[in-house]
């Protein structure tokens, strides 16, 4: 354990005495960016020079202007802590291997990103200082698509947009399943962070199948059936033989995934989206209670989004269109604005997929249950071109949009967003308690409860968008304080995050317990003795 704590202390907290550079990372001569602890300027410049020898000078970034695109982040960071010192951008497996060997030689930490667009989780920001971003966006080959099996094999830099365009261009009747910022996000990156989408294939890691991984030693390992010479089942059979390894490379820093297999849903003959409108904030438990049996039985097969009116309004409206600047966002004002836009206080979106006959069979059962919960069950016939209905209608068939970036303009223009995503079992009473706790905390810090529940097969992801004006220094600091209080107080109730941003990875890792941390650290030290891969990712050092 002492080794674990030493590495955490060195990399995470104690920067006193660390070497620094005056270029890059938003640093100035007065406030230079720190190098990774224990590394000298000679180590850093040696590594950067060697990286240039691998990928060419045009794909290594170290000066202030060139690093700037890697610094943009929405998360709270009042201490300017989550800044990289450079970036290197390979285009092949062999280049990744060479970079990893150089990183070992100079003990230069690498923070790997696929497309770097996870929005409110930190984008390309590393969790600890002194890291060079290993930017895999140039590795964007679609390697295989099997239209019969409904599988594909992708490199990490492929975006959902590229995959969809490829399927459309080649008239392959398979769907993709997108997170809310699909056009610029990566299927590989999102799956490795265990993100979710909104078709029946929405639990992304469940539909992952086979990986190619560069280990911290520079060796290449294939998981599942991928290491069997001549196997045709790498993208068809998830488990391979022996311990299941793929999970080790999600939300972790044990390897660099350079190829990933994924299952794609056949386009159904009929797709029918629904919205269920409930009128009161207090309707939370009855919605969850009505939806759970439909999800557990798989009568409703897609991951539902149960959206609060305030979250929905924040996508396309400005806060001062609802209440004056400085005034609390009260329920009466929200309800009035929601009603004017065809929304309820909670708006739950689900869809049916099948044939006319199968949908006609299950729709009355679902309608009866949701109507009994006090909801109005609505379809395209009633909602027409309502922009919110259109947004979810698009998402639930794997369609692409960036509407949720509108959230960043809800409150001022500074662009501040941090996702807080605690998990609970899908029970109404838990959601009721979570909503009450979240509202108490965010309102005390002067923020709004702009939240949604993603209703999974048996779980709830409570997705709280903490929106703040990053251009306002006092508000920025309050957002940082608020986020930490959310993590700590939810954790005390047994609700920990399923995923978190670089601003809180260590805090959340602590909640999952010392035995779990020590196990992860033991693995980490065994396979990455120089600590070169993403120190601090998910609180693992």
């Amino acid at each position, binding site marked *: 354990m002492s080794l674990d704590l030493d590495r955490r202390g060195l990399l995470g907290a104690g920067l006193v005495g660390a070497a620094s550079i005056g270029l890059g990372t938003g640093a100035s001569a007065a406030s230079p960016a720190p190098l990774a602890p224990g590394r000298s300027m000679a180590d850093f410049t040696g590594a950067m020079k060697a990286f240039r020898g691998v990928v060419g000078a045009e794909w290594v970034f170290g000066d202030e202007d060139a690093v700037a*695109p890697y610094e*943009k982040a929405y998360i709270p960071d009042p201490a300017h802590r989550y800044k990289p010192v450079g970036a290197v951008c390979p285009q092949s497996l062999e280049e990744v291997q060479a970079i990893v060997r150089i990183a070992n030689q100079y003990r230069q930490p690498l923070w790997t990103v696929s497309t770097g667009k996870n*929005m409110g989780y930190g984008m390309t920001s590393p969790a600890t200082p002194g890291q060079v971003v290993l930017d895999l966006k140039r*590795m964007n080959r679609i390697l295989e698509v099997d239209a019969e099996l409904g599988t594909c094999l992708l490199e990490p830099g492929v975006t959902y947009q590229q995959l969809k365009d*490829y399927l459309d261009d080649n008239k392959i009747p398979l769907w993709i399943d997108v997170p809310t910022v699909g056009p*610029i996000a990566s299927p590989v990156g999102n799956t490795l962070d265990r993100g979710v989408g909104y078709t029946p294939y929405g639990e992304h890691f469940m539909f992952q199948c086979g990986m190619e991984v560069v280990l911290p030693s520079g060796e290449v390992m294939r998981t599942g059936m991928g290491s069997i010479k001549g196997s045709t089942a790498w993208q068809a059979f998830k488990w391979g033989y022996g311990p299941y390894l793929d999970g080790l490379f999600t939300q972790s820093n044990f390897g660099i995934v350079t190829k990933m297999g994924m299952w794609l849903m056949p386009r159904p003959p009929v797709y029918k989206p629904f919205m269920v409108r409930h009128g009161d904030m207090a309707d939370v438990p009855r919605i969850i209670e009505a939806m759970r049996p439909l999800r557990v039985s798989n009568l409703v097969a897609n991951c539902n989004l149960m959206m609060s009116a305030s979250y929905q309004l924040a996508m396309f409206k400005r806060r001062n269109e609802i209440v004056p600047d400085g005034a609390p966002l009260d329920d009466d004002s929200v309800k009035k604005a929601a009603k004017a836009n065809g929304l309820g206080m909670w708006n739950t979106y689900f869809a049916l997929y099948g044939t006319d006959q199968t949908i006609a069979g299950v729709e009355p059962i679902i309608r009866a249950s949701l109507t009994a919960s006090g909801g109005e069950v609505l379809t395209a016939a009633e909602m027409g071109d309502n922009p919110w209905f259109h947004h979810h209608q698009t998402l639930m068939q794997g369609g692409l949009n960036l509407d949720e970036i509108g959230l*960043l303009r809800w409150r001022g223009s*500074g662009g501040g967003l941090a996702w807080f995503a605690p998990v609970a079992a899908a029970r109404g009473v838990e959601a009721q308690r979570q909503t009450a706790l979240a509202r108490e905390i965010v309102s005390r810090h002067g923020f709004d409860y702009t939240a949604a529940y993603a209703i999974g097969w048996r779980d709830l992801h409570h997705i709280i968008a903490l929106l703040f004006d990053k251009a306002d220094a006092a508000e920025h600091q309050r957002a940082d304080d608020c986020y930490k209080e959310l993590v700590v107080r939810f954790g005390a109730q047994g609700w920990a995050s399923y995923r978190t941003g670089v601003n809180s990875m260590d805090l959340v890792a602590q909640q999952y317990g010392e035995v779990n941390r020590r196990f992860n650290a033991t693995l980490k030290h065994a396979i990455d003795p120089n600590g070169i891969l993403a120190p601090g990712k998910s609180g693992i050092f």
Partner: protein
Amino acid sequence: MTRSMLIMLAAALPLPATPALAQQGGAPAVALPVRQALGKVLPQRSPEQVYAKVCGYCHGRNVGPIILGRGLPAEAVRYIVRHGQNAMPAFRPTEITPAELDALSQWVSQSPARKEEHGQ
């Protein structure tokens, strides 16, 4: 153009366009869309494609301000793409290549307004 001038221009983005500026230049000829082949990296895209696949999801759709038909200086467009402006994310050279950005910034600067776009 200095960095501070670019920032001032960026800050002025939500203001109405100047029609006289918007009419300078003229949009270049429309290029055929490039398609990505299996096993190959994404080839260089035309400005129209980059706009359709990235910028246009927000700009002109109520999420970001309208940028076409406003005669925005190409240099300001390049700066904002690389740094992100307020709610806008930054786009790295690995996402929009230097060659794509050079063409895109000229194209945005010279393109006429689109009637179907709306935004604030």
